[in-house]
């Protein structure tokens, strides 16, 4: 699979703060590439450099095989982006906003396509409403319509789920999956909503203090053989005794913070349940913890 984005040794300082520190990564074509990091880790700065909003101090960015500095216009024609919040012209309606940004995309877009795009994000009935009357979720969906209207090959979304309610998050998630599965786009998505990224991303890059700390496919990063599982029963002490007496004792984690935690292969959860039930323990739940969250915290925790 060819690389859509190739970033090499990217650096950016703001006065004496290293926002991005020797960052290199590769984004394969046709994937959702998750870009993870805590607030202030350097995600937005990296994205802004990829969109020529910020000038890098060092390093190169190659997109579609072309150098971004030398072929800025050709590259940006094929990119759709939302940078942090989709701030739009509040005194204009959705259709006017979409027309303005589509006209600036460097591609001639027929009116029908613009209307179709609004319909695709579920805003056809609010096309003539001023943006100041829109909710955050509606603005986010309109932002995605703006990013998609000129049919770009690459879509860059910086925190697209920020400030959204659960329904809004689900809508954006579905749009992202539609773009990659049905339209074959490459998506570069930054977020700190780890469980959401786990649902949508094929590959991930985790950065901390501007530096890369992990990169790879979801399978490579999240080993399913080592899933943390939280056990809740009616008899905690009795359960612990039984676990220690059986083969499960070796999987008990030392730091349990008052919970019964085991690190096992996810597929062995039914077997664990059977053992406890056969020993007369009433099991309330056996819940796999968000493994990406644990992995992320283990990498970025001070």
């Amino acid at each position, binding site marked *: 699979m060819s690389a859509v984005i190739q970033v090499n040794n990217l650096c950016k300082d703001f006065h004496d703060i290293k926002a991005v520190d020797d960052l290199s990564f590769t984004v394969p074509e046709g994937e959702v590439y998750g870009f993870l990091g805590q607030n202030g880790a350097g995600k937005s700065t990296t994205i802004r450099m990829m969109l020529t909003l910020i000038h890098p101090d060092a390093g190169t960015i190659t997109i579609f095989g072309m150098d971004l500095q030398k072929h800025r216009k050709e590259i*940006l024609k094929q990119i759709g982006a939302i940078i942090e919040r989709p701030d739009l012209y509040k005194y204009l309606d959705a259709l006017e906003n979409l027309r303005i*940004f589509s006209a600036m995309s460097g591609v001639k877009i027929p009116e029908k396509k613009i209307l179709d795009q609004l319909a695709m994000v579920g805003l056809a009935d609010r096309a003539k409403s001023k943006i100041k009357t829109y909710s955050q979720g509606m603005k986010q969906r309109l932002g995605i319509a*703006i990013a998609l209207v000129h049919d770009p090959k690459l879509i860059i979304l910086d925190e697209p789920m920020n400030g959204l309610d659960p329904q809004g998050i689900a809508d954006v998630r579905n749009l992202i999956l539609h773009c990659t599965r049905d339209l074959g786009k490459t998506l570069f998505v930054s977020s700190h909503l780890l469980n959401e990224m786990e649902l949508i991303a094929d590959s991930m890059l985790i950065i901390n203090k501007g530096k890369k700390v992990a990169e790879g496919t979801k399978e490579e990063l999240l080993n399913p053989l080592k899933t943390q599982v939280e056990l809740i029963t009616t008899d905690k002490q009795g359960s612990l005794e039984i676990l220690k007496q059986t083969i499960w004792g070796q999987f008990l984690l030392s730091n349990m913070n008052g919970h019964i935690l085991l690190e096992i292969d996810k597929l062995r959860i039914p077997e664990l349940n059977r053992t406890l039930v056969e020993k007369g323990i009433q099991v309330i739940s056996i819940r796999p913890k968000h493994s990406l969250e644990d992995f992320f915290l283990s990498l970025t925790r001070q």
Partner: protein
Amino acid sequence: MRRLFQIEIYKIFKRPRTYIAFSVIAFIIILIQVALKFGGKEYVGLLMSGVNSSFEVPTHEILNGYLVCYVVLNLLLIHVPILVALVAGDMIAGEANMGTLRLLVSKPVSRTQLLLVKFLAASFYTFLLLVWVALFSLALSVLFFGTNDLFVAREMDSNIITASDVLWRYFAAFLFAGLGLLTVAALSFMFSAFADNSIGPIVTTVCVIIVFTILTQMQIPFYDETVKPYLFTTHMLGWKGFFYVKGVDGVTVNGSIENLGEIVKSAIILLLYATGFLSVGIWYFRKKNILS
């Protein structure tokens, strides 16, 4: 480029605040016209206090549409720049404040092109504002007060320009005033490129205009030679030169301008200022990191 220009114009005229300047100008001009309609005789008396003692002054002839327009321009052309700053200062900083600048700059349009188009749009707005001033101050005054010879009072003497020789002078004066306003637009635009909030550039431009205008109007010999010749506000008053005419044996020469060279010099200086302000704005914006 044409499409981008249309977008910028569309955005300007979709904002309610754009119409503040047009409303304010119409209101003030009508206010002045009403005042002169009912109290014009006293005003002319005051205007001609130095001449009254030696001549019989036909007030009803002196107070005509051309004089009213001249009065309006004298009062207004100091303040219109402030209204121009309201829009020009908002062109880039306003986008940064709204958060739309990052979306614009990430589009396949060069930063220089984006700024040039925005400045062109601000200039077009300035031009329309000037046409609006001309419509209200000249056309409406002529409609209400009629036409006659124009009496122009100066510091040491006065000129009377025959009615048939006035209109072209107004056109020239408006064009020149347009150049002055363009300079102010460029100044405000430059400050706008520096900032991420439109209040800053607008207030800074207004402060510069106020300070420079005070310096321009100060009658202190030290400033006359050291400071005034370099202030753009001094040259913005160059439009008055079109109403200073040559005279032979006390009779004004039709079509003449007393000091055309001075007007041309002022026009060139204003153009240089406007180009300078715009260039600095573009230079800064090209290397600016868009963080807003």
